[in-house]
């Protein structure tokens, strides 16, 4: 009997704890209080892309901390504001994402920082767009996002179909001239869109696309794709896979002695963990560099790229990634647009954002008329792993080392 009562009261307590905030929920806690600017939005903090989520989150937090602690806030239209972050985890579930974003829209958050994955971003954009709220994000780059006629959503990365402009120019510059290319992608939106863009670009400059191989979304074995590569070896092998899958593929290439003159891994080699795990074998792998630490840019908040890196490293133990810098620069870009507009009116800030032409710790920021990053100004540079370090090998004006081509076979490395 006693047990029954305690169980019941435990449950009762639980029920009250659970429902009370729903009924008496204080959504005005979200409200834009007089002297605070709130940045809302969601990130996928749990799920396959949680690592990216954490990198982006740290970027946001770094910028917020710096602005409040080092600058004492920001001055807009003659008034000083503190900045605040209100990010939630969308768990990559659209039902959850839309309702949490709605909560922030209801709570008068006007400035959103975006998630990634078009199945999350688009339904959320529908809500923010309808409410006249703004989004600046450093994750999603699917073409569809920028083809809806939305006026209020901006992205740092050029849309997928334009993300290969620099890379294609780079392929043209290689001597001796490569003749063929094969592409390995995985069956997810990001990888597929980029593989198609890469294939189209390569065809455009006369490179023969031998194979476009699509693996399942989570790769545990690429042996059959690699058997195809060995049977019909291209001059360049491109993988448009995410970090974890890239590492599976490259390791299996080494283990099965699958050699190509040039291995281009869109994502992966940027990670220190990737390079450490491969050691000398990593030498020669090409990647896209959305950001490069050694190229210094002026930043209206942090001062410069170098100053940003110093500040970040002083306050964090986690290695700096391009997503982190990009995320910080999203906030920089927002703040600059607010200053230019001299107002927190979303419509005015929107126009300032559309006209943005600044440099940040991340690099130059300029949006296309549809809102994605300008493919030339914000396009990625090309890097290559050399002696465990990432060197910029293209474009020529910013390069830090010469390209190694063709790269030695695996057995000759280390």
């Amino acid at each position, binding site marked *: 009997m006693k047990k029954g009562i305690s169980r019941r009261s435990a449950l009762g307590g639980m029920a009250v704890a659970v429902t009370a905030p729903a009924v008496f929920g204080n959504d005005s806690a979200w409200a834009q209080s007089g002297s605070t600017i709130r940045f809302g939005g969601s990130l996928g*903090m*749990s*799920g*396959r892309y*949680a*690592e990216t*989520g*954490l990198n982006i989150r740290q970027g946001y937090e770094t910028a917020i901390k710096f602005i409040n602690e080092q600058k004492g806030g920001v001055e807009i239209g003659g008034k000083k504001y503190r900045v605040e972050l209100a990010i939630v985890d969308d768990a990559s579930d659209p039902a959850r994402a839309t309702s949490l974003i709605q909560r922030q829209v209801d709570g008068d958050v006007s400035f959103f920082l975006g998630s990634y994955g078009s199945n999350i971003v688009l339904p959320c954009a529908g809500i923010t767009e309808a409410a006249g709220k703004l989004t600046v994000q450093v994750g999603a780059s699917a073409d569809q996002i920028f083809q809806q006629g939305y006026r209020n959503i901006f992205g740092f990365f050029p849309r997928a179909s334009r993300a290969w402009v620099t890379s294609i120019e780079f392929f043209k510059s290689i001597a001796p001239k490569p003749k063929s290319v094969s592409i390995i992608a995985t*069956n997810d939106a990001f990888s597929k869109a980029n593989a198609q863009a890469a294939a189209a670009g390569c065809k455009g400059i006369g490179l023969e696309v031998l194979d476009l*191989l*699509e*693996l*399942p979304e*989570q790769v*545990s*074995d*690429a*042996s*059959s*794709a690699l*058997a*195809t590569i*060995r*049977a019909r070896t291209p001059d360049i092998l491109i993988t448009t896979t995410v*970090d*974890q899958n890239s*590492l*599976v593929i490259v*390791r*299996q290439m*080494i*283990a*099965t*002695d699958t050699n190509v003159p040039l291995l281009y891994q869109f994502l992966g080699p940027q*990670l220190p*963990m990737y390079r450490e*795990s491969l*050691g000398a*074998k990593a030498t020669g792998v090409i990647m896209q560099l959305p950001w490069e630490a050694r190229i210094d840019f002026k930043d209206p908040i942090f001062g410069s790229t170098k100053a940003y890196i110093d500040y970040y490293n002083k306050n964090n133990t*986690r290695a700096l990634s391009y997503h982190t810098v990009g995320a910080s620069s999203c906030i920089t870009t927002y703040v600059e647009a607010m200053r230019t507009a001299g107002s927190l009116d979303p419509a005015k800030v929107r126009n300032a954002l559309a006209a943005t032409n600044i440099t940040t710790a991340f690099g130059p920021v300029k949006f296309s008329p549809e809102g994605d990053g300008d493919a030339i100004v914000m396009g990625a540079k090309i890097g290559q792993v050399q002696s465990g370090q990432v060197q910029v090998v293209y474009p020529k004006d910013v390069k830090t080392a010469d390209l190694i081509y063709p790269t030695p076979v695996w057995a000759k490395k280390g």
Partner: protein
Amino acid sequence: MNGTLLFQTLVDGLILGGIFSLSAVGFSLIFGVLGVVNLAHGVFILAGAYIGLWLKGALGLDPLAAIPVVFLVLAVIGGALQRTLVSAAVQRGSLMTSLLITFGASLILRDLLILAFGPDIQSLSSTWLLRTYHVGGVVIDGARATGLLASLVLLAMLAIALHAMKVGRAIRATAQQSFAAGLCGVDSNRIYTLTFGVSAGFAGASGIIIGMINPFSPFDDAYWTLNAFVTVVLGGVGSPVGALLGGLMLGEISTLSSQYIGPRFPNVFIFCALLLMLIVRPNGLLGNAYKASV
């Protein structure tokens, strides 16, 4: 058809299958003996990999040498989970409620992994740097072949333990009884705890091997649980041989469909094979090691 390519594909499937087998055997045992579908299985595997990672970082212990330690740690965690939560759920509700319990446990354990190790991709060792072997035109991936060997050794040890050791026989005896029936001489609750522990231990050990071959992150758990599901249904419930057979089938279906139909197709084929097998022989090729077919 190109003979070398076919042979290469078969070898690749075999090697992949060996890893699937080991990763599924714990799931199979729990399912066969307790009738519980353990949705925390994938997290057990990853926990094994992460503990291996920690031992390597903190003590410089080689991952393969860490297997016994990982086995023990996971066995304790698994046993404790059974003793406290799973048994309570089965007693108060039904076998079905145990699904909710193991699902809840998987959410908690996964967050604990993230707390301890972060959401980042990790990698256990550089054993993949092992040699590549060329046998008559067929390329053999040294690392994965090592994984297959280790899997076979561990599976054989389990098979021997189940048949030759007293505890093993007790486990099999318990499984053969109907769940509700009273037991004579064997403390069934103790055996359930033991089974859960041993199974979690094997999951952990397979985590080490998986971690040596592929990078891993805390969110891979669903993938491994699902694979274990498929392996068990294909091969047969409750026995190491069933898991081995199921894993090998899974590996072969995966590589053959990938090579000859298209690299994006294996998942469709795997699940179709699963459904077909369920319809034709619900207890897998070998049937349930302990019970007559349903």
